[in-house]
């Protein structure tokens, strides 16, 4: 399980690194211009931690450590909220993938909503988690292609939303017309996650 997480986080980090300036530009338009740098900092911290340390007891404590490290190194609104998923994933069970993913998503969503005082449609990365959660339930299985498609749709949808959380809520435009930066980074992380799940299932 720990190996799974390492692979997934490493891949996410790579893709975020390719895109972090683009994400900064999105946050530049509707926030303070740092989200790409922030999420990259968190992921790089995680990767370098498990590259230099080898003794991890179990998946729960591993992901606890990782999520805390990321939260501390990221800080801000995104650090505390985006690492919830990472922490919840400690309970992921490869022997009961579908169900444990559903649980992870529903716990993640509840905790983000509570901590972030945020709802679906408020223009945040929650607008990615919720549709994917629904998609998973509706499909009754993990269909990579459908999920990827849904992620892209949901991401695009954030463009049309008025921000009711985050810094963009203070803009005249409420951020309409710009993809939410947190949703963008989340789309990368979730795509990498489901690709890795797919690999696991096909092994």
């Amino acid at each position, binding site marked *: 399980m720990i190996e799974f997480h390492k692979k997934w986080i490493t891949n996410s980090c790579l893709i975020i690194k390719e895109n972090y300036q683009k994400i*900064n530009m999105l946050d530049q338009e509707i*926030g303070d211009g740092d989200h790409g740098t922030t999420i990259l900092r968190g992921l790089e911290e995680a990767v370098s931690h498990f590259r230099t340390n080898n003794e991890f007891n179990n998946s729960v404590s591993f992901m606890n450590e990782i999520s805390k490290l990321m939260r501390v190194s990221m800080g801000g609104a995104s650090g505390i909220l985006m690492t919830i998923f990472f922490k919840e994933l400690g309970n992921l069970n490869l022997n009961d993938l579908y169900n444990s993913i559903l649980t992870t998503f529903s716990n993640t969503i509840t905790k983000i909503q509570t901590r972030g005082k945020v709802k679906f449609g408020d223009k945040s990365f929650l607008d990615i988690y919720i549709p994917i959660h629904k998609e998973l339930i509706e499909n009754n299985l993990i269909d990579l292609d459908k999920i990827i498609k849904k992620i892209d749709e949901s991401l695009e949808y954030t463009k049309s939303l008025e921000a009711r959380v985050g810094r963009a809520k203070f803009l005249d435009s409420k951020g309409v017309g710009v993809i939410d930066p947190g949703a963008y980074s989340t789309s990368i992380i979730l795509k990498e996650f489901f690709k890795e799940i797919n690999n696991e299932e096909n092994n």
Partner: protein
Amino acid sequence: MKKIINNNLNIVDDMLSGYVKSHSDRVKFSEINKRIICRKNKKQLSKVPILIGNGSGHEPIAVGWVGDGMLDANIVGDIFSAPSGDLIFEGIKIFKDHSSILLLISNHSGDVMNGEMAIEMAEDENINAKCLIMYDDIASAPKGNEAQRRGGAGTTFVYKILGALSEKGADIEQLLSLGKQIIDNTRTLSVAISPGTSPITGEKIFTIEEDEIFIGMGVHGESGYGRQKIQPSKKIISFMLDKIFDDFNYKSGDIVIPFVNGSGSSTLMELLIIFNDLEEYLSKYNIQIFKPLINEYITTQDSGGFSISLLNSSEEMRKLWLEPSSVPYFHL
């Protein structure tokens, strides 16, 4: 980007290293973490420690206010990012032997979420930490929704006055109660004139036309009342004060403490001219001025702009405002 820095990733650590070295008579790194700056001399257990966590890039606030009469510790986040709840909790734990601890939080979502998390962590370990959420920026939410407002430069009154009160041995309830009164009686409105440069991205933080100013912008470029053409100082100031007077019911004879804060590249010359116009406006309404504060305290890098904060003061507040403090970067 033309900033005098070394490695981009070490900006905050390099800065704190310079800060602690240069003011080693008053501040030090906490023993546990170099992102927590404490007073040099710990106080007796009867004092309620006052802490805040905040994103950096706005210096001198808040790291420059650690010391006798103001903060007991500051937990320093990255540029424009609140520190994590975990880190704030580390800061709180330093004072775990005190019977209570006050965590100030400026009302920005990252600061609030992380601050609340830290308070929960403290509760889990039976540490009695309470938080006070500070807000004052009238451009960020309408009258009636005061608690939705962002924390702006007017939060300074809370730092200074509660800092002085806690030195006198006040308990946490007294601090929270006076803190609430200060917040209820503070109004701030800011103006952005030119964008500073983000040290992270090297880009300008916002855009604005050559002949425009932006009334009500937040410290990270958040929007407010919107753009207008630049005008003479007197006109801008009376526009702003009209807004503040619409929001708060000042009465003839009120005694107000004004704070004119520079955002980074506006000059002291301009801040003093602004104060001159402000004084004329207030005196028209027969509002008295008590010991104003005028300088750059809450900056957004090299942004041009300023804010006006008014505290409609009680006698107790005024007395505490004047109490001596000894911190590197706060001076009446």
